[in-house]
């Protein structure tokens, strides 16, 4: 449905997206990556708002950029929350339906508003909406022409947990109806809970793609580093390094650093090891758990 072939995009001298190729079909696909990795640039190219510097971007076999008819098969929910504040939700969705030239704009509007559960607030001005409501009315506007592909840029930003859950249920339902849904996020848990398939973007490159469980395993199997403070670092270090889970121990400037291959196994191991060695644990800190470091690990592989 959505296909990128050898796509790069640069702004002046800055390369935002570098030789990215992927195909996205029916179901939910998550575009995961740290902020500034190029997710938005990719989605904007998919939605025909940016031209690729090299390569091709197609949706349903049609070129995206400079080709307005492509919008019959795609709905975009942009990240910026701006929606005309002077329109009511219903007016906004109906105007979107009219721009699509739908034969029965009113019926399509009612349907789209019900799909996002906004019937109760539809006749209020958007200016008074909460962030979550605005997001939902934007989705209704993007869905009103019943497109086979829906592209959402950071759809969960600024939503509270309840709204987030509601939105996930909605997107799952739409995917079950056979739609292609591509959304971006910089939060691992969001992608984990929603996407069947994941594309990991780091520094403009496609770092990994595939089933989420596979990628999760790659991420958890990487070496983890912890710093430990205890009543006897030397004894604890000696005890830990004897375990196969631990791949290395370093004691420098009174700071014990431990490298382990398996996050879960190490966290289960450390308390027992301290007890066995007769050492009191004061502090155990994973040092390198930012998403960025997870991502850069994936890139180096």
């Amino acid at each position, binding site marked *: 449905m959505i296909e990128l072939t050898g796509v790069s995009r640069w*702004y002046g001298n800055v390369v935002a997206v570098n030789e990215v190729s992927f195909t996205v079909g029916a179901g939910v696909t998550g575009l995961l990556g740290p902020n*500034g990795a190029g997710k938005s640039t990719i989605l904007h190219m998919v939605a025909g*708002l940016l031209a690729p510097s090299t390569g091709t971007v197609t949706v349903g076999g049609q070129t995206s950029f400079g080709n307005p008819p492509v*919008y019959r098969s795609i709905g975009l929910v942009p990240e910026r929350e701006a*929606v005309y504040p*002077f*329109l009511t939700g219903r007016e906004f969705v109906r105007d979107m339906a*009219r721009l699509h*030239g739908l034969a029965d704009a009113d019926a399509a509007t009612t349907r789209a508003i019900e799909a996002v559960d906004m019937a109760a607030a539809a006749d209020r001005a958007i200016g008074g909406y909460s962030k979550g409501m605005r997001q939902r009315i934007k989705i209704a506007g993007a869905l009103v022409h019943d497109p086979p592909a829906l592209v959402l840029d950071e759809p969960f930003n600024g939503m509270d947990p309840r709204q987030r859950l509601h939105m996930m249920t909605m997107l799952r339902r739409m995917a079950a109806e056979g739609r292609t849904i591509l959304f971006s996020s910089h939060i691992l848990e969001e992608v984990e809970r929603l996407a069947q398939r994941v594309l990991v973007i780091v520094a403009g490159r496609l770092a990994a793609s595939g089933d989420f469980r596979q990628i999760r395993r790659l991420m958890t199997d990487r070496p983890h580093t912890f710093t430990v403070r205890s009543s006897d670092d030397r004894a604890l270090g000696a005890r830990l390094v004897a375990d196969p889970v631990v791949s290395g121990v370093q004691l420098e400037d009174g700071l014990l650093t431990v490298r382990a291959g398996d996050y879960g196994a190490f966290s289960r191991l450390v308390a027992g090891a301290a007890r066995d060695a007769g050492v009191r644990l004061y502090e155990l800190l994973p040092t390198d758990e930012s998403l960025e470091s997870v991502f850069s690990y994936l890139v180096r592989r």
Partner: protein
Amino acid sequence: MTAMRTIASITLRQLLSRRRTLLLLLLGAVPVVLALVYRLGGEADSPADAVSWTMGMLEYLALVTVVPLVALIFGSGAMGAELDDGTAVHLLTKPVPRWRVGVAKLFVAAACSVVLSATPILLAGLIGADDAGVAIGYAVGGAVGAVVYATIFLALSLVTSRSFVIGLGYVLIWEGLLAGLFPGIATFSVRQYAISIAQSVTARISPLVDELEPRLAVGTAIIAAVVVLALALGIALRRLSRLEIAGETA
């Protein structure tokens, strides 16, 4: 057609926010109030006197000041505001050719500019000169100026994101100062097109006004206005068709 009507109606509601409309009505009220003061103060010694005073007032206050300012606000705001706040995405991700988006926006910007600048001119002309010829002549000149200016400013808003400031500079320095000082650049001054057309129409329909000799012959003014309009429209539509909207700033 439905699509263009929808774009026009959104643009209209966007441009005619309460505050903006009020501000522009106040601006338009200035020549009207001045004309009232002139009449009520009994300054006019003869009808011919009143006509020549009103024509001078309308030229400097309306054609040189009100018309370009009103057109600047509508012309640069019609597309520029939506590009700034990001709502333009809703219009541009629809199966509507971009030139249609541009034409619909321009139509609304030009129509708003014409109504909000020609109406006060008409009123001020009727009050100040007590002559329909002067009122209509200057309203026509003002309307032509408003349409050309609005198109220029719409194009400018697609070329730079600082279209308002640059447009204001152009209105004050080029149109306000230089085009008044140097007759040589009259052919490249929208202000002179408006004045030439206003004087020519007035002379034609008013019994009180003899044939005038504007700095720019009316034929030249019309042709130049059409050329500038077409050029600005061409630039605007070309820019719009290639316009890209970036997500996160790289």
